[in-house]
């Protein structure tokens, strides 16, 4: 079981036997009052969305999803193909199903594909991924504009803010849950 304090964007829970994913989440706690967990959820089978506010003592069932380790092979049109690394079975998910995961998905990456029955419905990415910076403005040392970060683009096309010393061609580690820069990595 999950409790309300486990709720966060991307968490999957089960309601009335069907899997739901939290698509938007806002924690609020007015001073001296009880915590409120405002969530927007999407049914992972039908795509139907709804919003609901939960409280600390609410509990949720974990969805009955099977996880299989698969490797991302290639995309064609809006289909993204994955292969089971032990059975070599191939499946695909659509662009819509993958949503924001595409910000961090690169060829040959190993991910967990989630199955509801025999239907692939989602993937879960590694928490941290290393991606190459493809577009970055050069760092002007002694820059006095007072900004601590600059925008860069990584190989997937995703844009994020990083410290100014990060340069084009660097590999950086990104937290896939938040899309934030963690560190520069040497390879």
């Amino acid at each position, binding site marked *: 079981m999950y409790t309300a*304090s486990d709720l966060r964007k991307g968490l999957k829970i089960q309601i009335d036997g069907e899997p739901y994913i939290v698509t938007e*989440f*806002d*924690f*609020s*706690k*007015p*001073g*001296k*009052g*009880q*915590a*409120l967990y*405002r969530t927007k959820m999407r049914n992972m089978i039908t795509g139907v969305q709804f919003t609901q*506010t939960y409280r*600390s*003592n609410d509990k949720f069932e974990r969805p009955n999803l099977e996880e299989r380790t698969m490797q991302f092979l290639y995309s064609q049109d809006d289909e993204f193909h994955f292969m089971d690394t032990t059975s070599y079975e191939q499946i695909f998910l659509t662009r819509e199903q993958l949503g924001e995961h595409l910000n961090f998905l690169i060829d040959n990456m190993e991910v967990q594909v989630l199955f509801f029955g025999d239907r692939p419905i989602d993937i879960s990415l590694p928490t941290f991924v290393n991606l190459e910076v493809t577009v970055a403005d050069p760092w002007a040392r002694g820059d006095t504009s*007072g*900004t*601590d*970060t600059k925008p860069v683009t990584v190989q997937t096309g995703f844009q994020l803010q990083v*410290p*100014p010393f990060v340069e084009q061609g660097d590999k950086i580690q990104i*937290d896939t*849950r*938040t899309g*934030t*820069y*963690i560190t520069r990595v040497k390879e």
Partner: protein
Amino acid sequence: MLGPSGLRRRSELMGALRAFFLARDYLEVDTPVRLPCLLPEAHIVAFSSDGWWLQPSPELCMKRLLARGCERLFQICHCFRKEECGRLHQSEFCMLEWYCSGTDYLGLMAECEELLTSLGRALSHFPSLQVSGHLQWQDKKIDLSLPWERLSVHDAFRRYTGMEVEEALARDLFEELLVSRIEPRLGQQGPVFLYDYPLALGSLARRSTARPKVAERFELYIAGVELANGFSELTDVKEQRHRFASEIASLHSQGREAAMPERFLNDLEHMPASAGIALGVDRLFMLLSGVTDIRQAIPFPEETL
């Protein structure tokens, strides 16, 4: 996450806060962050630490110092609250808390106005404060000129929810309406004090003599963000013991530990009439640096540790 220039601005904010209070003859104190017994509060979950607790607020020790004869004191310290994480919450955060004897919550509201006005001058080189008397945050231009609006909780419920506050409480909708309907409207043109909370939400605040259904408590809002919570302190030991007993009962019903803070109650006998307030420093810095998520205003968001 902050880099060198963000950290410099944060340090300048800390300096300006200290300068304000020291110039007003406030004593800066540093009280223990690990305590054997906490003030019982049903909606706050503390971290345990080898049989003791990490402070969710410096309130307990600072009030004991008031009782010891300190008349004006402030502290900037870290506080810890379990399971609080979001755009405006981190489970470890920086708090500014100050107490002043011989004043009440109205006096504290005026002091909040003076504090922000003083910061506006001291930090006028911040991009957010470059237009004199205003705070630029996102696409909002917030007018800091005095006096700030004072809106009672009673009137706020009437104005923004169409439901009386008594009914919202009876139907357990108080927080939900506050968060969804009221807070987003507060402090969008200029800062707002939301004041006079129902007695049930009075916490450690004194009951108003003129309006016995409310406690003399207020919250300061800027741009929809709850920035500070202050009140006229309750010094009636009997009443305080009674309120603690009901919080302890509520905690026990949730299966959580709680004990009567006897030493605190003992000292409360000697505490002068006073008022105290806690202000979220990370949230203040978030507003002053133009960002919308507290993680962008602190040195190390939890997920980067």
